[in-house]
């Protein structure tokens, strides 16, 4: 039988500590050549979908990976209507929920490496929120100062929320300072998460104020312009960012201030994974980091996997600045977390089973 799971079920099946452990092992396997990171391929074209903004495009995104020690292959798929509305004066990327019942389309398919059969199909939403934050947190675990206690968080959305939980799982955090452009949002965010984590959460009026004097500065926004600047980088700080859609959240000059940089996957740092139909212009596809001559050496930095596996050096003193560029999803994250979700679901008897024959065939493809 092929297991069908929902986001609600996955939320109960997957804890942050377990996600961190699963990803940590998967990155070790990647570094040792036992798992394939699984880089992205996006096809982008015109859509007839109607959104609130003039700019809308269709994107079919896929990434595939194999994790040998888990004996699974995984594919993550997104079928998105992308839009770029302007919010509080800043252009942001978002996805319009145009599927029936105002929903989005994102799926993970998990396969057995021994028989090829589809083991499970489930939506990617919760895993997506979890894997980005857990990966940032692994960067913190392996690169930030051991005694890091204070965190500056730029962003107060869903990704930022997940980053609070993940960061608190890898360091004894005493306080977070949080900036998001909308006051009401950041206030509510802090109130909710302070209640949930017991950690002091303080909303602040600017991004600079959020990171000033902190040990760890996290960018978890959907902004298309840089949000963290070179003058804000202080000795001993660990700076980290989740996306480079329009431009890197951390401005290039700030990245250059780091003594130790880790990238997510060297072969996956450019925007070269996108194929577009003629005349399509993505508002957030400017110059990527690999196109900047001054960052040529930085783009050859070790990967997070190499640092986790001990194959590349991390921080050697408390004064050093470290930086992790958590850019672009990798298939292996979905293999690792998908496998954890599947195992837990089977153990607990959660989910609906569909006949595997629906998804296999008696014609040799």
């Amino acid at each position, binding site marked *: 039988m092929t297991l*069908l799971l929902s986001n609600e079920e996955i939320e109960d099946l997957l804890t942050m500590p377990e996600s961190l452990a699963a990803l940590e092992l998967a990155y070790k396997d990647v570094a040792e*050549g036992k798992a394939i990171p699984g880089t992205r391929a996006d096809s982008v074209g015109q859509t007839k979908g109607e959104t609130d903004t003039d700019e809308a495009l*269709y994107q079919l995104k896929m990434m*595939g990976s194999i994790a040998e020690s888990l004996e699974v292959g995984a594919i993550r798929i997104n079928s998105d209507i992308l839009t770029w509305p302007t919010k509080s004066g800043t252009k942001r990327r978002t996805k319009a929920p145009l599927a029936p019942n105002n929903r989005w389309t994102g799926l993970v398919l998990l396969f*057995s490496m021994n028989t090829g059969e589809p083991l499970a199909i489930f939506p990617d939403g919760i895993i997506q929120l979890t894997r980005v934050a857990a990966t940032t947190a692994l960067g913190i675990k392996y690169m930030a100062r051991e005694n890091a206690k204070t965190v500056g968080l730029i962003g107060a959305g869903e990704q930022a929320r997940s980053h609070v939980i993940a960061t608190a799982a890898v360091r004894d955090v005493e306080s977070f300072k949080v900036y998001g452009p909308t006051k009401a949002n950041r206030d509510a965010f802090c109130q909710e998460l302070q209640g949930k984590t017991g950690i002091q959460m303080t909303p602040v009026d600017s991004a600079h104020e959020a990171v000033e004097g902190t040990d760890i500065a996290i960018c978890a926004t959907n902004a298309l312009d840089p949000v963290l600047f070179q003058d804000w980088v202080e000795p001993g700080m660990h700076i980290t960012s989740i996306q480079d859609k329009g431009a890197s959240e951390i401005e290039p000059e700030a990245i250059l201030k780091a003594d130790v940089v880790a990238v997510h996957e060297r072969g996956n740092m450019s925007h070269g994974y996108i194929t577009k139909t003629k005349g399509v212009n993505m508002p957030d596809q400017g110059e990527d980091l690999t196109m900047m001559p001054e960052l040529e050496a930085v783009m050859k930095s070790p990967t997070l996997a190499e640092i986790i596996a001990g194959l590349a050096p991390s921080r050697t003193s408390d004064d050093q600045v470290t930086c992790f560029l958590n850019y672009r999803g990798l298939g292996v994250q979905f293999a690792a977390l998908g496998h954890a979700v599947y195992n837990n679901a089977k153990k607990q008897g959660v989910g609906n089973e569909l006949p595997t024959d629906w998804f296999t065939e008696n014609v040799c493809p």
Partner: protein
Amino acid sequence: MTLVLSNEDVEAAFTMEDCLSALEETYRHVAEGQALTGRRSDVMTPTEPYQGEEASYLLKIMNGADAKLGIAALRLTSEIMIWPEISGVRRRTKAPRAPNDRWVGLVMLFSTTTGEPLAIFPDGVMQKMRVAATSALSAKFIAREDAEIVALIGAGWQAGAHALALSKVRALKEIRVFSPTKKRRETFCKELQEEIGVTMSPVDSPEAAVQGADIVQCATSAMENVYFKDWMQPGVHVATIRDGELEPAMIDAADVLVIHDPANMGHAHFQAIGGARNKDHDNETAGREGRDDWTSAPSLADIISGKKTGRENDNQTSCFLNYRGFGVQFAAAGAAFYHKAKEMKLGHDLPTDWFTEDVLP
């Protein structure tokens, strides 16, 4: 609702004519820049041996979208690859190791208007149809107008689909078939002659098949060259479905060379771990040193759309390299099949909510 369809549904609702016209239309869209294929990804690793044969697991994904049709497709296969020796020749095949001895290959169709999954169905029948239809489109647009004799090298299911597809694009008199096993090629001819209404003649050697043929179609699972430069005759159109079937010198010698897609000739999409080796690549030549010039040849889309010229006279030799799946083919064929399946009320409807979400991914 999201429609779950079967290979039987594809067979019932989707004809070779449907496939030919759907692909032809989409290749025109490709040439206009309105349809595209995304980067393909194949990942491979060792897996448990199968019946004593060294085996590899291969997870293969490709995608494509046709903005004019409003449809995007993702095709995936999750397979156990083996390369057994049959009648002295090494062949590639896939072990049916999924429950009930089945294979795993799926096509997922999405709306580019809403993003929703429209349909999910196995790729097996469509896979053989789209490969054959693509070869036949090359014959339609590049072979001589008066071509009437086909040499078919291979007598497997892929060869069968090719016989059918070629019979739809030229008024054929005879298809001569060679494959190494006598009994196999005889049964193949007997069965297909009735189905497609063209004289099918089994022959004892590949030379006997290609002598005087107007179209030479290679559709084998062989791992070595099956057609050679010395066998070429003026005016012939030669098509191959796999890198390695044609002697490289033969490809170089063709007056008109057309490739499937320039971005899809090498193995940049392939990653392997743990010593897994794709033996398919052993005899391949595309993208190797001195061969890069092939990628500058016109694509099939260029020829179909009239952007570039194919054959200019009846004496020229022409050659089409139908290498590697091309994601947009599944968008094209999938869209045509989906619309017919809806009309004929085929398949099972599953709630689309099972495959969508209310969490922004």
